[in-house]
């Protein structure tokens, strides 16, 4: 499971962090465990970064994942994956990584 904001009033799930619920405008967002499952919708291999601290980690596999819970998440990929692959997200050190769901 991963932790995202879920609205106690309308049950919608949100990412990135919101301050009020964008679906119903109530102040009822709560951090909850949600399903880490989703589908890879597109990907890229990043060869340049605007920040020098990333230089020795390039190239990086990145993807956009549509979570079953709703939101889109830009995430690291554990390997080169095809669009449409079913993936599972994990959250470590402040970032998400997607790997193929087995």
């Amino acid at each position, binding site marked *: 499971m991963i932790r995202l904001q879920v609205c106690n009033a309308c049950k919608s799930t949100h990412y990135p962090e919101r301050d009020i619920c964008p679906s119903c405008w109530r102040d009822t967002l709560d951090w909850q465990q949600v399903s880490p499952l989703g589908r890879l*919708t597109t990907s*890229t291999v*990043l060869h*340049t*970064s605007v*920040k020098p601290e*990333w230089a020795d980690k390039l190239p990086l596999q990145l993807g*956009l994942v549509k979570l079953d819970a709703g939101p889109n*998440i830009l995430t690291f990929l554990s390997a080169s994956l095809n669009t449409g692959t079913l993936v599972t997200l994990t959250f470590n050190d402040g*970032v998400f990584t997607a790997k193929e769901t087995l």
Partner: protein
Amino acid sequence: MSMPFDDVVIAAPVSVPYQRFSDKRANYWLGRALSMLRETSGMGPKDIDGLSVSSFTLGPDSAASLTQHFGLSPRWISQEVTGGASGITALRKAARAVQMGDANIVACIAGDTNPKGGFTDLLDSFSTDMSAASLPYGAGGPNASFALITKAYMAKYGAIRADFGLLAVSQRENALAYPNAIMKKPLALEQYLNSKTIASPLHLFDCVMPCAGAEGYLVMQEKTAREYGLPFVKIRATTERHNAYASDNVQLRTGLAVDADALWAQAGLPPTDMNLVQTYDDYPVISFMQLEDLGFCDKGKAKEFVNRHDFTTSGDFPHNTSGGQLSGGQAGAAGGFLGIVEAVRQLTGTALGMQVENAKFGLVSGFGIINYDKGLSCAACVLESGQ
């Protein structure tokens, strides 16, 4: 439908020549736009009673604090926050202010500085969502976001890199005639295809070069423009939209698709009547989407459209006639003004580069504010030569 803009016009298009890097403040670049507006129009601080400012690098300054900085005492100010759409969103507000008598002459200016390392600072302060959901993933910034979009677009519609290359190559040809363009060398399709990868499928010539610079124009009543002897363009129609299609998984369409029919209805013209088109080109894919969403071709068919037409200034579909940002450079928020400023020059017969012959109507569109997965703001306007 929106009300027409009556006799409100745009005049005095100015471009402060861009520099790759600058240690000067944004205030300098914006101030240079004002001094060029004065040189072009004869209107100075005593005449300008409206100020619209668009900039990412103002730091603690605002349109309000800049009034003292620039010796203005306006009765109307506005600050644009839409980046690549700001040239048109500024126009929409300024034109209504003039139309309703809240200002007589509005100076609309956009500019940014770019010290070494400045682009990284700009991204760090760009938006909460970019900081939370994009930069922690290798800090690719807009390159990463548009790489994801471009790959999905290619997969869905069958576009290939050479299709995007046609756009970049034609704009470079336009830029070679435009004295302010940062890029001065010809670009062949082979070079485009063989350039280094930035974020697959984006390569070097798909990406803009951040630089320092400014752009500006004046908004006033037609009779004022005539009094001062200024060439002008009329505003046939405008539109803007933010956060459209929020539930799309990947951005393959812009908010322009929501409002295109209303735009052309207000203009009373079809897309085929346009003599020139300026799209916001921070990456070729987004120009493709603007052409499709505005109805110049069917959805997904920009690939065919760019192969079937000549996008150079002397071609049958003059597009980004100053070279756009891809060849001209991206001076921050001024990138959102480049298209409208160039369109006003073309439609008043005052092109700095090659002139589109008999240019009567022009379309300008803008796109901006990419958070992490989507660009949020878009806008468009249809302009008509006052000649």
